[in-house]
């Protein structure tokens, strides 16, 4: 148990730090903070022009969605880069607990997503006069944490596919952009055609954003518990699927001696 915990904490921290081998502070600030801020502004102004929803709708939706960038891309890289950089074989040759290896990589991205989302909310408060209901901030933090965790789980699934797929980043990009469309970030789920809305309800973000919007509007945590539980369960489902895929591809890779072949 102690060894697994150590792998979970230390392994996760090292994996996260490894990303900064090529992500410089300048790149982090522009990509993880600058670009998301302009995304919020872009959609707030587009919303004003379209006359579809008020500013708060776009602020909450986008400020949570930008956390998905860290969750999906970061987690995809956290797993798939092991294969790309040639460290997958040594990693899988160790007797370390696979669940600890896998889950440990997720934790820094959840924390990172929270930072990015908090920055988005703070800047919206400063620039766009966004004012959530009094006392709603702790509940909003919970909603963002659950939603970010759920997005990280989806990132895990895509990352696991990266153990087999040739170009996993194309898939990660595609999923990320589709989530903008179907997860209620810019368009309320009920305004989408039924089938698109149904896809959105099976993905992370949708329920979390809906819960956060209600919380920011003054709802009590208990009122949105159902939405948050649904978001958490969706995340757990993706995490479980990701872990199963990871183990299947590991076993297949060993059997065919194809762990790092493309």
């Amino acid at each position, binding site marked *: 148990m102690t060894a697994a915990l150590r792998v979970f904490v230390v392994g996760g921290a090292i994996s996260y730090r490894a990303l900064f081998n090529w992500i410089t502070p300048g*790149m982090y600030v522009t990509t993880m903070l600058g670009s998301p801020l302009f995304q919020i502004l872009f959609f707030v102004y587009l919303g004003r022009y379209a006359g579809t929803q008020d500013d708060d709708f776009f602020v909450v939706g986008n400020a949570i969605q930008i956390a998905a960038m860290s969750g999906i891309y970061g987690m995809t890289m956290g797993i798939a880069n092991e294969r790309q950089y040639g460290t997958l074989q040594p990693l899988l040759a160790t007797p370390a607990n696979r669940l600890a290896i896998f889950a440990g990589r997720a934790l820094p991205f959840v924390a990172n997503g929270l930072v990015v989302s908090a920055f988005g909310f703070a800047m919206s408060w400063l620039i766009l006069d966004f004012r959530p209901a009094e006392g709603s901030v702790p509940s909003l933090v919970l909603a963002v944490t659950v939603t970010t965790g759920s997005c990280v789980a989806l990132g895990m699934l895509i990352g696991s596919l990266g153990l087999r797929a040739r170009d996993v980043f194309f898939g990660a990009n595609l999923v990320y952009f589709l989530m903008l469309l179907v997860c209620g970030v810019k368009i309320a789920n009920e305004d989408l055609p039924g089938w698109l809305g149904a896809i959105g309800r099976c993905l992370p973000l949708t329920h979390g954003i809906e819960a956060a919007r209600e919380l920011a509007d003054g709802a009590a945590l208990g009122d949105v518990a159902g939405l948050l539980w649904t978001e958490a369960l969706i995340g757990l489902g993706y995490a479980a699927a990701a872990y199963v895929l990871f183990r299947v591809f590991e076993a297949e890779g060993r059997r065919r001696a194809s762990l790092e072949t493309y």
Partner: protein
Amino acid sequence: MSLRLFWIGWLFHLKNLTNSMFFVLVSVLQPVIFASIAFFMFESGNRTGTLLYAALGAGLMGIWSATLFGSGGAIQWQRWQGTLEILVGAPPPFLATLLPLTIATATIGIYSVVGTLAWGRLFFGTPLDFAHPLQVAIAIPATVLSLGALGLLLASTFILYRNANAFANLLEYPVWLATGLLVPLTFLPSWVGPIAWVLSPTWGMTAIREAALGGSAWVEIGMCIGLGIVYLALGSVALRNFERLARSRATLSLT
């Protein structure tokens, strides 16, 4: 000789970029998704008659993204691939080999315009009745050429910045917003206006919309071409400066 070099270089880079999944994503899939978002938002906000407006705006967004990511990292990519020294050492001026690349990055953005118009027509019933087809046919290449020249300026200045790719990420949304591609400039703070005027996508977008929706686009087409010439002049100065510094410091292949 120069025309042949331009044609061969442009064609080569166009084929090369078309084979890249990243550029397929940036120039086809991403604009189509953004067009869909705009269509749904305009529909639910009861902004009728704006579907063609949204389709053209999302198409131009794709041209900007392709130019930004393609040209912004153009020199860096040549450096990573080990072809930079060959291009700089070749007899033609470096400008003559780089310009076809930056114009090719803007050209693949045409996929965006075609993609968003076709998507809008097929799934949202967007009317494709262009008020002045001839002006549309001139405005689109003029926009592409001026963005290609802007791409040259980006390529020759981004190279001085180590995190050019990150800088490119930062510039995507602000230019979409400041050039009125989907949100009219009248909805933005007044200080955005002067920024918009020196960016050719503003004039390109206005030209294409005027030509498509009714009105005269000739002034805007002229502005596009004029700005393109200014970008070309600034880009060639910056490029000469980069080449001189890289040669004198022996840093051409160093990242």
